[in-house]
Every structure is written in C-alpha cells, then in structure tokens.
C-alpha cells in the first residue's frame, strides 16, 4: 500500500519578541482550529488510518538560548516534532542537528528544506518526557518539547469550612476527559485513597460530569484539616491536583462579628448622647437669652417706676 504522510499542523511557534510570544500563546490555546494544511491518510501495518499531529518550532535568531514548548497529550497518538530554521540561515552548510531525549539520541531525523523532524509513537507513560532538537554551527540553538499528561488544577487558596458543616472539594479537568478519578487524603506523609463505599456517612464522591469530580465530606471535624489530592487517570498516565481544606470553629468569625456589633452600639450611643447634650445646651442658651431679656425688661420697668415715683415725689 502506498504510504502517504498526513500531517495536521496543530500549531507552529515563532521565536520573535516577547509580545509575539504572547499572541502565539493564544494560538496555542485554540489549537486545532487554525493553520491546517494538507491532510492525507497514512496507513499503518494494521490498515488503520492514523493522523499524525505535528508540532513545530520556528527558530529565527541564534541567540544561544533554548526554546520550550509544552504539549499536552491525554491519549495514544503519533506525533511529529519539528524544528524549523529561518531561511536566512539556509546558507549554513556545516549545520549539525541532533534530537535527544535526555541523554538518549534519536535517529531517523527526517529533513526537509529548513526543518528537521522526528516522528514518535506515544503509547504509554514511558514515551512522555522532554525531547529536544539542537542545531549547532558556530553557535548553538535548541528547542525542547515537553510531552505531558494534562494538568489538573486544584485550588491554590485553602477551602474554608466549619465544624459540623459539609465541605465540597471540586476538581476539574480543562479539556481532556479522564478515564477515572480518585481522591486521596494526606495522612502525615502518606497519601491514602478515599473509599466512599467504606465510609458512606463521611465521604461522597460524585462524578458530576465527565470532566468534573466532587468530593463531599460530611460532618467535618478538625481532623479533616489537611491536604487532599484528586487524581485523574488518563491513557498515558496520571495527573494530580492539590487542594487544601481548612477547618475553623465558629468562634473564629464570631469574634470579629461581636467586636463590630459592640462598635456599632457604641457609635449609636455616642451619637444619641451627643444629640441630647447639644439639645440641652441649645435649651440652656435659649433660656439664658430669655432670662436676660426678662431681666432687662424688669430693670426697665423698675426704672420707669422709679422715675414715676421720682416724678410724683417731685
């Protein structure tokens, strides 16, 4: 049968300046939806069409630094890793290109005009790791591909729960569907798997959807404090996410609450007292003024009387 190569270029990375690097980060996340070229069918020995996914790094400047690329794989595939050199270097004849995985050199480098690539069959966990291509002339330029299982994110900040309450720990896998989920609790330095059938009153593990798992811990106590792990099993390996559970007693928020209540009561009392005080002051001031007026009138009246008596006497 004819061997026709099929390449689906998932993404291509160009080394320019940091801002470009950022926009390409975007391209990476929308992998599969952009830049595809030809698609052929390659038949293997088993007569099954296999699509080869190609990852390419475009090396532009010989700066001596190394480029890194993370590739996430969740199931067995055949991939092609390629390093492409800028056309301006195509005149270099004495270019040595090596593909390595750790210390192990990989043969079977297929070369095209400006790119050197290797094809890998990723079948199980042992095939994952870091693969690097090194182009050596007078200076050295290299790029590394990190093949990994999907990363499961736990929660950086601890999850707070209260004694006697229910705690819900959630793990999500972003775009890849795991085969199975397992939860572990850390006891000292050991990781102990949580069996919800053994302790159904305490733990409830619920696979809410394909990519999401919930661990519900009922009637939480201080002993449940600690680090929990959710493990997602993929075809190519396992990945763990870390979550921290922190158990507080109700006294902890109650103290600030009571402090605030005391403060509010104090403020209200002060405001009312000030109001009563200022009203009294106003009243006193008014009474004083009225009193002065009365006094004035009295003296005027008495003066008048005096004058009249004086006049009478006169």
């Amino acid at each position, binding site marked *: 049968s004819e061997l026709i190569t099929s390449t689906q270029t998932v993404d291509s990375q160009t080394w320019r300046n940091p801002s470009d690097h950022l926009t390409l980060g975007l391209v990476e996340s929308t992998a599969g939806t952009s830049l595809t070229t030809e698609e052929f069918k390659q038949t293997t020995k088993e007569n099954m069409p296999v699509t080869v996914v190609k990852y390419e790094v475009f090396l532009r400047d010989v700066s001596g630094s190394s480029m890194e690329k993370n590739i996430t794989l969740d199931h067995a595939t055949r991939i092609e890793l390629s390093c492409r050199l800028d056309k301006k270097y195509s005149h270099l004849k004495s270019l040595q290109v090596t593909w390595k995985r750790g210390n192990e050199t990989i043969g079977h480098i297929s070369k095209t005009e400006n790119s050197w690539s290797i094809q890998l069959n990723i079948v199980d966990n042992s095939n994952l790791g870091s693969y690097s291509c090194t182009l050596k002339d007078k200076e050295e330029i290299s790029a590394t591909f990190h093949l990994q299982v999907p990363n499961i994110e736990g929660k950086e900040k601890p999850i*707070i729960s209260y004694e006697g309450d229910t705690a819900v720990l959630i793990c999500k896998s972003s775009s890849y569907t795991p085969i199975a989920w397992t939860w572990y609790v850390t006891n000292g330095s050991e990781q102990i798997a949580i069996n919800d059938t053994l302790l159904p009153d305490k733990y409830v593990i619920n696979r809410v959807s394909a990519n999401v798992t919930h661990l519900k811990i009922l009637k939480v106590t201080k002993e449940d404090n600690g680090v929990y792990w959710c493990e997602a099993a993929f075809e190519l390996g396992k990945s763990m996410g870390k979550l921290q559970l922190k158990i507080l007693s109700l006294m902890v928020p109650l103290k600030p*609450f009571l402090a605030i209540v005391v403060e*509010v009561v104090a403020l209200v009392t002060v405001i009312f007292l000030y109001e009563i005080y200022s009203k009294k002051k106003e009243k006193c001031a008014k009474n004083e003024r009225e009193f002065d007026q009365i006094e004035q009138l009295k003296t005027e009246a008495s003066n008048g009387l005096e004058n009249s008596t004086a006049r009478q006497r006169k």
Partner: protein
Amino acid sequence: PAPGNDGRAPSPPPDGGWGWVVVLGAFVSIGFAYAFPKGLAIFFKEIQDFFGTSYSEIAWVSSIMLATTYGAGPISSILVNRYGSRPVVMFGGLLCGIGMVSAAFCTTILQLYICVGFITGFGLALNLQPSVIIIGKYFLKKRPIANGLAMAGSPVMLCTLAPLNQFLFDNFGWRGSFLILGGILLHCCVAGALFRPIGAATASVKPQVTGKGKDALQEKAMEVSSPTSVQMKNEMEEEGERDCCEKINQYLDFSLFKHRGFLIYLIGNVLMFLGFFAPIVFLAPYAKHIGIDEYSAAFLLSILAIVDMIARPATGIIANSKWVRPRIQYFFSFAIAFNGTCHLLCPLASGYTGLVVYSTFYGLAFGMVCAMLFETLMDLVGAARFTSAVGLVTIAECCTILLGPPIGGTLIDTFGDYKYMFIKCGAVMVLAGTFLFIMNYYNYRLLAKEEKERKSKEGDPNSVRTENESKKDWNRETAQNGPELEPLREKQDALKKEVNGT
C-alpha cells in the same frame, strides 16, 4: 405681642451645618444599598459549588435582593411618612444584619433566597429611600451637591466591598463572611442615628414672643395642651372623615399620578432603566469574549467605578451652579442621551484601549445620571411629596431593572454577538433622554405659563389671600411631612392659641 410666623411661607431647610453629617450618613446608607448586592457576586461561585446548583439558581439571590430593594419602595415611603427617616433606617440596618447573620447558617438555597434575598433586600430598601428623602429635608439651595455627594457612596462602597469581600472569603469562607457582613451592615444603624429629625418649617415654628419667659409659656402651653390636643384631635378626625383619599395620600401620595412632572419622570426613567444596568453586567464578559484576560477585564470595572466616584460629586457641583440648576431637567436628559451614545459607540471600540476609553466615558455618564436621579425628582415634585414619589418611582423601575440584563443576555445568546445588546441599550437610553428632553421643555413652558397666570391673578388686595394660600400650602406640607413635625405642630398650635388669647 407679635403672633407667630403663621402668615409667612415656611423657612427654608438649613442647607448646611448638621446637614453635612446627614450627607455622610446617607453616603454610607446609599452606598450599602447599591453596592452590597453587586459585592455579593464574589461568593456566588463557592455557594454554587457548595449547594450543587446551577449558576442561574444562584443568580436568583441577586435578582430577588434587587427586586425587593426596589419593590419595597412604597412600603419604605409609607413608613417614612408615618415614622420619619431615622427609625426606618435604623430598623432597616437591623434587618439587614439579621438577614445576613441568618444567611450564614443556611442549609438550602431556598433559605438563602429568603435570608439574603428578601430580608436583607427589604432592609436595604428601608435604607435607600429614607436616606434620599432626608437629604431633601435638609437641603434646598445646595441640594444637588448634597445629592451628588451622597450618591457617590455607591461606587466608593463598591470599591471597598469588593476587596473586603474577597479578603473575608479567603479567611472565613462564605459562612463566616456572611456573619461578618451582617455586622458590617449594622453600620446602617449608625448612619440612621445621624438622621436627626427635621421639618422643613422647624425654624418658623418658634414664635417670636417678646416680653414673656419661654418657661412661662411652656407651662401655660402644657396647661392648655390637654384641651387643645383634644380639640386638635377632633379637628383631625373631622378632616379624616371628610376625605379618606386624603388620608391614604397622607401615607402614600397617589395624587402624584396627576402630577405632570412626576409622570414625565416616571415614563422616562422606566424606559431608561431598560438599558441602564445591562452594559455593566456584560462589560467583563464582553471583554473576555474579545480576548482580554480576566484581570484586565476586572480592571475595566475598576476604571468605571473610579470615574463614577469622581463624576457624581462633580455633577452635583455643576448641577448646583446657577446656569444649570433652573434647567436641571435638560442636564439630566443630556446625561441619559450621552450614556446611550456611549453604548451605541461601544461596538466600534476595538481592543483593550478602545474598551478603556469606553469604560471611562461610561463611568462618567453613569455617575452623571445617578447623581441627578433623585435630584430631578425632588426638583419636579418638591421635597414634601418626594417621600411618596420616590416609593412609587422605585416600584415602577423595579420591573425594568430586573428585565434589562436578562433581555440583554437573550440578545447575546440569540445573535452570539454582544454588539446587539449595546445597540439595544444605547437606543433605549437615547430614546429616553430625548423623550425627557422634549417633555420637560413642554413642562417648563407650561409651568412658566401657570406661574404667569398665578401672578396675574394676584394683586395688592390679595396679600391676605396669598398668606392664607401659603398657610394652606404650609399646612398641607406639614401634614405630609408627617410625624417629624407632629410634636412641633402641636406645640405651635398650643402657643398660637395662647398668644391669641392674650
């Protein structure tokens, strides 16, 4: 001895002094009322995970809270008419505190709806209306500034609550945070304590009595008060039986629906609120949709809040200037139309810089509209009837406020594009602004005509009649100002009788 100031028009509100302390209290109160529901959004994700519900079920908490805050407006107005601002605000603060504290112990989402949605929402309603009302009682000449400053409480509180809520959540989880937030909401009681009762005619009640000691008068007043109060009660009963509509209107002035200015304001505002809040709700999702990262998207909202914070008092100052104050309704319509134009131009904004410019202008426009929202209503109906007006307006706005974001959301879902939502909001607001502009122009002309007619009817021999008219107006106003004047009115009437007796 000279009689009291019965014949003259009521003296104006203080316009300063303790009034600025009241503005501070209103700042806190209004700030909590507007910012608290928005600030709660930080907890929603965790509560959703905890109860295992969908996002829309959690969003109902916010909607119920908002609906109760606006829908309970008339109840708030009735209570203020009956008891005055201070007790209502303090009770509202207490209710908010109780609501949040009980929410901390909720075990189902339904309990959360009740505790956070209804109870706290109702408490906030009892905070919002009275705060706005008491500003109208303390200020007249500087009222736009006072309003602008008090309304600035909303963005300031939002900027404070957002990081505070995040901090509380990181340290205490959502239950502990609700408990502590309940305590924080009790500060509304403190704000309420600052709302010293005042009547628009407090100063004029002190009769100018010369040659008599005030103490002597007081003693005589107390002697006379029992028969007089009985007499007054009979008087009041007679009045009550005479017109039951008037009695209802004492609690909630439905006669406002015949008031031209009020109707214009109502229709214009109800229309405006259809497009008012939706852009804020969808700004961050829109930013993320066009590829901006989460933190920069959140920063857009911060820019909006900061510009809003500055715009509100600034608008208050501008609105108070002698050029704008007489034509404040035009300024308000302009602000609404400006707001709408911003939204219409938003789809043209490309990239982050464009959105930053949009956020700045939106913050400015939003602040301008909010600062004048209640000032224009006060301007149209007057401080006396404002109590009932604000209640009726908020319950009418309640529907459109709740409808706005969901309609926007439906537009986004149907067309898959945010620009139709912006166009809808912009169009609605430009329409509302134009409507208000035209109708207020018409209203101003009619008011000027009525004023001219009234002046031409009055001549020299009618000085007595005007005195009686103004006394009638004043009595009506005092009747509507409610219990804040009750003790003063009784005293004043007793003194009047005493003075007339001599």
